[in-house]
């Protein structure tokens, strides 16, 4: 960006030329995960790398820093870094010792998971200061001053107290700010941010991205932002690279990519991510009968007892909410993590007995689909066993009848019968979520509680699952309570939407109405945070 704006010739900072990264397999074979990846980033620029999980976007950057685990290495091509003094470094040929000097000083990186990228047994101050100890020999007082100033710059307040705190005392957003402070402490030329906001709530996302942008503008730091979220890329980057299955599919200026995508894959990504995908229209209008009536419903959590035999304290997580779900209706609940939306759904399904208030359901056993398709299927059992389990428990039908019903349900969710004998471990995330949906439908209950069912999936897979959900809803006349933090998904799927904030429903109404004319401050913030 800077180069063209200032009229100067753009100066290269990092260049990948035909890079192929491989990991060793048995018997000296390499499994190559990226092929001929070529792109560059100019000094002062913000470059985005977009792609789904497994597309090779993180691996390419880890290769540049020599941080590939499991014996992975660059098998073809070169990665060149230009420190600015006219020389160039072939990063993929440096020794570990030479790389250490580059990392932190010239290039630093922040990762997705702020929970695990900080050492839990070191104080914040000690961790950030370690960067200085390794790369600098300033006296103790000066080091402390610099760390405090940096933490302040990263938008953290009360830095003196923060210095002595441990990571678990901080929220996710604060931890990510600490990570950024650590990464920026030595004023690196290049900052690589790998999905820095994916684990954070939308309202905090925006602030973290603004912080990255601030550093780019103030210190001329070059940023490479890796994300699966096109909205994140658009708000920070001027240029973007689209990766798919280990190859660069398309690259160019962000505006051009977004307005006139050339490749089919980019178009699909855009359609799914920008919510431009049409509202998934459904013909059946909600009926008059109620599938669920909820009045003054509160849900409590038991805090861990502090002493043996001591009475446990109760904490109110959901505070007296009231709403209805009609038959054949899709009601969305939005809110950030910790607002009580999952707790509400689990309590409605009968998984938490500590409730107060009134809950009337039209069906006996509402079923649930969970967010993480890797945790919700028992890894020790076959798909067929899992699907027939509710029938076995209820002593429904003979063995053959149960098998027939399970196979029919597999076909309904778009899987072939051969999946009957397979184990969950051999399925992809999308396929697992299909099985989870099939399990929820086996008991033929009319109310299904969907707890972030597509959040853990790639955007293109998300799309398929959403279409499947709408199709099944129509076919079986189901009612959904659809929980999500993603406003786009809610907009496309739901008839009505409830906005939850700190355990209360602060706004409700038809989806169109809420999106067009949000009343509550929090709803406005949520809507602003999306594209």
């Amino acid at each position, binding site marked *: 960006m800077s180069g063209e704006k200032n009229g100067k010739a753009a100066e290269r900072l990092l260049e990948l030329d035909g890079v192929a990264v491989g*990991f*060793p*397999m*048995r*018997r*000296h074979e390499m*499994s190559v*995960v990226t092929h001929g990846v070529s792109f560059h980033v100019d000094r002062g620029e913000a470059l985005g790398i977009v792609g789904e999980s497994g597309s090779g976007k993180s691996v390419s950057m880890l290769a540049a820093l020599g941080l590939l685990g*499991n*014996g*992975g290495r660059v098998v073809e091509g070169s990665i060149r870094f230009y420190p600015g003094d006219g020389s160039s470094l072939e990063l993929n040929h440096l020794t570990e010792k030479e790389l250490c000097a580059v990392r932190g000083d010239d290039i630093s990186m922040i990762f997705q998971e702020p929970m695990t990228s900080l050492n839990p047994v070191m104080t914040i101050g000690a961790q950030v200061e370690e960067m200085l100890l390794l790369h600098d020999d300033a006296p103790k007082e000066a080091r402390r001053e610099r760390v405090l100033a940096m933490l302040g710059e990263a938008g953290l307040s009360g830095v003196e107290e923060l210095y002595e705190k441990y990571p678990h005392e901080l929220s996710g957003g604060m931890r990510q700010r600490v990570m950024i402070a650590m990464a920026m402490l030595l004023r690196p030329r290049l900052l690589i941010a790998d999905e820095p906001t994916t684990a954070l709530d939308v309202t905090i996302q925006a602030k973290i991205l603004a912080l990255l942008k601030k550093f780019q503008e103030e210190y001329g730091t070059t940023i490479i932002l890796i994300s699966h979220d096109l909205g994140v890329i658009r708000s920070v980057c001027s240029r973007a690279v689209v990766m798919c299955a280990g190859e660069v599919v398309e690259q160019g200026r962000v505006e051009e990519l977004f307005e006139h995508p050339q490749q089919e894959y980019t178009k699909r990504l855009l359609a799914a991510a920008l919510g431009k995908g049409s509202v998934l229209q459904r013909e059946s209008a909600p009926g008059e009968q109620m599938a669920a009536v909820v009045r003054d419903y509160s849900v409590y959590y038991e805090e861990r007892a502090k002493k*043996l*035999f001591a009475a446990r304290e109760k904490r109110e997580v959901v505070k007296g909410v009231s709403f209805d779900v009609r038959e054949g209706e899709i009601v969305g609940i939005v809110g950030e993590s910790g607002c009580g939306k999952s707790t509400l759904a*689990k309590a409605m*399904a*009968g*998984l938490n007995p500590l409730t107060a208030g009134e809950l009337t359901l039209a069906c006996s*056993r*509402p*079923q*649930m689909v*969970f*967010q*993480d398709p890797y*945790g*919700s*299927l*028992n*890894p*020790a*059992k076959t798909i067929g066993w899992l699907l027939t*389990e*509710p029938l076995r*428990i*209820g002593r429904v039908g003979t063995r053959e009848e149960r098998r027939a019903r399970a196979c029919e349900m597999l076909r309904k969710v778009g899987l072939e019968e051969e999946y009957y004998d397979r184990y969950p471990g051999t399925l992809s995330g999308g396929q697992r979520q299909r099985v*989870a949906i099939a*399990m*929820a439908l*086996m*008991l033929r209950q009319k109310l299904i509680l969907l707890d972030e069912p597509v959040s853990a999936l790639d955007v293109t897979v998300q799309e398929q699952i959403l279409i499947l959900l709408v199709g099944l809803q129509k076919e079986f006349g189901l009612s959904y309570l659809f929980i999500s933090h993603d406003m786009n998904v809610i907009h496309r799927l739901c008839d009505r939407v409830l906005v939850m904030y700190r355990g209360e429903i602060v706004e409700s109404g038809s989806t169109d109405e809420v999106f067009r004319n949000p009343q509550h401050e929090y709803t406005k913030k949520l809507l602003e945070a999306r594209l």
Partner: protein
Amino acid sequence: MKKRRGSQQNTKNWSLVLGVVLVSAVLLFVVIGLFWTPYNPTAISVALKNKPPSPAHPFGTDNMGRDVLSRVMDGASTTFLISLVTVAIGLAAGTVIGALTGYYGGVVDELLMRLNDTLTSFPSILLALVLVSVIGTGKYNIILALGIIFIPSFARVVRSEYIVQKELDYVRNARLLGAGNLRIMFVHILPNTKPILLSTITIGLNNAILAEAGMSYLSLGVQPPDASLGRMLSEAQAYLMTAPWTALAPGLMIVFTVLGFSLISENLR
């Protein structure tokens, strides 16, 4: 991405193969010993007292002129029986206790686990000694005593696994489908503890073999003239200077068995 370093993979395979070879060789030896031994393992002969290894007696004879090879074949099966049943008792009771305490938690969990702590705070062989002194010596009493001593280690492992597993969504899902607590515990969760149970079992077998050897060495286990590996070591001790071969065969047998199980359990982890 699940990829391992190639050389690591090869070492693993190699040690697994060695472990399986050792254990199956020992097992073969024991099975043959059940039906046939070169000589009667308890036949005493004054003429053959403490004879060094020879073609007729490959591992020599002991202080009563009994063939050491025959006694090892016979004794190993006794030792194996004791250790297998011991581990089985520990596994069965430990799994049930661990599952109940891990799954339900609460006061019962606290009480049982403190009892568990108390048991593990003594050396297990000491506890076994106390138990044996109460219920008496002999093969079956040893099995019972060691079995009880082995319960806490299994209970602890199973409990911690249940604490992790019970919070996973698949358990919630099972509950939504109408599965009762017992069904969730033993049909849904139990198969998922298999990997950790397998490695605990192999470690348990090792410990049981060593414990039996220790108890018999102290003359609290298998009684003469019956043979067990520990019993034989105990008897060989007095003649270690004059007839060291009497200790060699049972000692090697224990080393091979323990090494074999250890190598297998390393690979199961």
